[in-house]
C-alpha cells in the first residue's frame, strides 16, 4: 500500500498533450521516398524497430517509450520490436544493428549520443531502411544517412529558459547552472543556449557557478547545498532538467530559504516540476515533450505514402509558469 494510494504518478494517458510540429518555415528541406530510396510499404504490416537509449527509469523515458508503444498499438502495427541500451552506447549500436539484421523496415531511434552512428548508417542505407531519430539529433545528413529528426531544439529550450530566468530575476543578480551529465549533447546545447541568451538579454546577470548534477535529483540537491554555502547570495538556479531543479528546491528548503527567495527555472515539464510552480518554489518550466509516438508514425506513414516529409521536424514545446501551471498540470508527464 503506497503513501498516496490512488492518485499515483504513473502517467496521464500518453495521448494527453500530444506533440505538435512547428509550422515548418517555407522552403525548409524535405525528403521523399524517391530521394531516400526504398520501397513503399504498408506501415501496419511492416516490421518496426524502436531503440530506446536509457532505462525507462525516469518520467521522460517512460513517457517516450509508452507513447511509441501506444501509438503503434493504435495504428495496429503488430511487429514492433523495442530494445533498450541501458545507457550503454555500444549496446545501442549493436541493438540497432541486430534489428537491421532481423529485417526491420522502419527504425525509430532515441540516440544516446549524437555521434558514432557510422556503422549503423552503413548497414541501414545498404538496405534502404528509413531511420527516424527522435528527441536527440544525430550529427549526419538527413535524407541520406537517416530520414528525419523529430524533436525539440535543445539550444532553443536553453534560450527560452534564459528569457524566463531573466524575467524572474529582473535582469540582474547571480545565477547558478546545474549541468546535466557531462559529455551529453543535451547538456552542451541547453548550456550554450542559456548562456548566449543571458549574455544578450541580461548582461547584468552573472553566471557565477556551474556544476554537474548528472540529471539526477540527489546530485542536484548535494551540489546546491554546497553552492548555497559558498555563494549565499545566489539569486537564481537554472536546472538543465526538472529532477536537478527539484533537488535544488529540497536543498533551498533545507537551507531555510522561502519560496521565491531564489528563482528556479528548469527544462522538461514533469509533474513534480509543474507542481513546484504551483507551490511557488519554481518560476518556470520549459517543456521537452516526450510523446513522440504519434508524430513519428504519422511522418513515417507520409513517407511511405510517397509524400515529402520535413528533414528537421522541430516540435513545439510549451512552457509552464505561474499563469498556466495549475491549469495545465494534467498535461505534464
Amino acid at each position: 500500500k503506497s503513501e498516496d494510494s490512488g492518485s499515483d504518478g504513473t502517467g496521464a494517458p500518453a495521448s494527453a498533450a500530444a506533440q505538435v510540429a512547428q509550422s515548418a518555415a517555407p522552403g525548409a528541406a524535405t525528403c521523399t521516398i524517391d530521394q531516400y530510396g526504398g520501397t513503399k510499404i504498408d506501415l501496419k504490416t511492416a516490421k518496426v524497430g524502436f531503440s530506446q537509449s536509457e532505462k525507462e527509469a525516469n518520467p521522460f523515458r517512460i513517457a517516450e517509450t509508452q507513447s511509441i508503444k501506444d501509438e503503434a498499438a493504435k495504428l495496429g502495427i503488430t511487429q514492433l520490436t523495442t530494445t533498450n541500451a541501458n545507457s550503454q552506447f555500444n549496446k545501442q549500436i549493436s541493438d540497432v544493428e541486430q534489428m537491421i539484421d532481423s529485417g526491420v523496415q522502419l527504425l525509430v531511434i532515441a540516440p544516446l549520443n549524437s555521434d558514432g552512428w557510422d556503422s549503423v548508417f552503413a548497414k541501414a542505407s545498404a538496405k534502404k531502411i528509413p531511420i527516424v531519430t527522435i528527441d536527440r539529433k544525430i550529427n549526419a545528413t538527413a535524407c541520406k544517412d537517416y530520414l528525419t529528426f523529430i524533436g525539440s531544439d535543445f539550444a532553443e529550450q536553453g534560450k527560452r529558459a534564459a528569457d524566463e530566468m531573466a524575467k524572474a530575476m529582473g535582469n540582474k543578480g547571480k545565477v547558478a547552472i546545474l549541468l546535466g551529465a557531462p559529455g551529453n549533447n543535451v547538456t552542451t546545447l541547453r548550456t550554450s543556449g542559456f548562456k548566449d541568451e543571458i549574455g544578450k538579454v541580461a548582461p547584468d546577470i552573472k553566471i557565477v557557478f556551474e556544476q554537474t548534477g548528472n540529471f539526477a535529483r540527489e546530485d542536484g540537491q548535494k551540489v546546491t547545498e554546497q553552492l548555497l554555502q559558498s555563494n549565499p547570495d545566489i539569486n537564481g538556479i537554472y536546472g538543465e532538467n526538472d529532477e536537478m531543479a527539484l533537488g535544488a528546491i529540497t536543498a533551498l528548503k533545507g537551507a531555510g530559504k522561502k519560496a521565491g527567495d531564489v528563482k528556479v527555472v528548469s527544462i522538461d515539464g514533469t509533474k513534480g516540476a509543474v507542481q513546484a510552480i504551483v507551490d511557488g518554489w519554481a518560476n518556470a518550466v520549459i517543456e521537452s515533450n516526450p510523446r513522440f509516438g504519434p508524430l513519428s508514425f504519422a511522418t513515417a506513414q507520409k513517407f511511405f505514402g510517397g509524400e515529402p516529409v520535413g528533414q528537421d521536424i522541430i516540435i513545439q514545446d510549451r512552457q509552464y509558469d505561474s499563469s498556466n501551471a495549475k491549469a495545465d498540470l494534467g498535461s505534464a508527464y
Partner: protein
Amino acid sequence: MSTEVARETPAAAVEDARRAERTDRIVGTIQRQGALAVLIVVVVISLIAFPNFRSFDNTATILVAAAPPMLIALGMTFVIITGGIDLSVGSLYVLGGVLAAWASQYGFAAAFAAPLVVCGLIGVVNGALIAYTRMAPFIVTLAALLGARGLMRAISDEGSETYLVKNDAFKQLGNGSFLGIGYQVWLAAVLVVLGMVLLSRTRFGHSVYAVGGSEDAAALMGVPVRRIKVGVYVMSGLLAGLAGAINAAKLGSGVTVLGTGMELDAIAAVVIGGTLLTGGAGTIAGTVAGVLLLGVIQNLINQVGNVNSNWQQVISGAFLALVVVAQTYLVKLRRVN
C-alpha cells in the same frame, strides 16, 4: 558402500585411487571448459528458438560487438591470473577511443599510436605502483579509473567535444569486413591466439601463473615477479586502448559517453571463463567463451524482444550467479574426489 570398502585391501585401494584419478581428469576438463559447454547449450537452444538468431548477419553482429570486450577481457585474464585486478580498463577504453579519433587527423598510424602510447603508459604506472610499492591492485587501478576518465574529459572539453575520425583507412578498419566478418573480429582473433601462445607456451606465460600461484615462492624460484606484474598491467592497458581505438574506428568518432561498468563486464567474463580471482589458474579459451556468452545472452534478450529494460538487468544478474555457482560446484566435485 561401507561394507564393500571395509573389505578393501591396499591393492584395491590403489585401484580405487586410479579410478578416481580418471574421473578427476574428466571432471577437470568439464570444469575448465564449463563456460564453453554453457555457451554451446545456449547457442543451440537459441538456434532452434529464434529464426533471426540463425542469420549469418546476426552472428557477424554479435562477433563485431564482442571484439572490443574480448580484447579487454584478454588483458584482464593475464592480470587476474597473477592474482591482480584492473579496474581502469573501462576508462582506458573510452580514453583510447577519444585519442584515436583525435589523432586520426594525423594519419592511420597516429590513430593507433596515440591511444597505445597513453594507455600503455598508464598501464606502466599501474604496474609499477603495484609491483614496487605493494599497494593493492584494486585501489591502484580504481584510482587509475578516475584519473583516466578525468584525462579523457580534460582533452575533450569535459566530454562535450566529440572528435570525428578523419582518416578513411582507419574508418575502413572499423566498418570494412573480410569474408563478411568485420576486420576488428579478425584482429581480436589474432590477438587472442597470440595471447594463448604467450600464456601457455612461453616462459613469460608460465611466470604469470607462478606469480599468481605463490608470489614468494615464485620470487625464490628466480621469477622476476615485479617485471612480470608490470608486464601484465601494461598489456591490459595496451589492449584496453586498442579496444577503444577499433571501437572509435567503427563508430567513426571518439564517443565520450562509453565504458562505464566495462571493467566489471570484463571481470565477469573472465571469471565465467573459469579463471580464479585468487590467481594462479585460468585459460584464455575460457575467457573467450565467457565474453561470447555475455554477448549471446544480450542478443537473446533482444531476440525475445520487448523485455523491460529493468528485467533485463535482473536476468543478467541471475544468469551470472547461475553460471559461477555451477562452476564452483564442478571445482568442488573435483576436490572432494
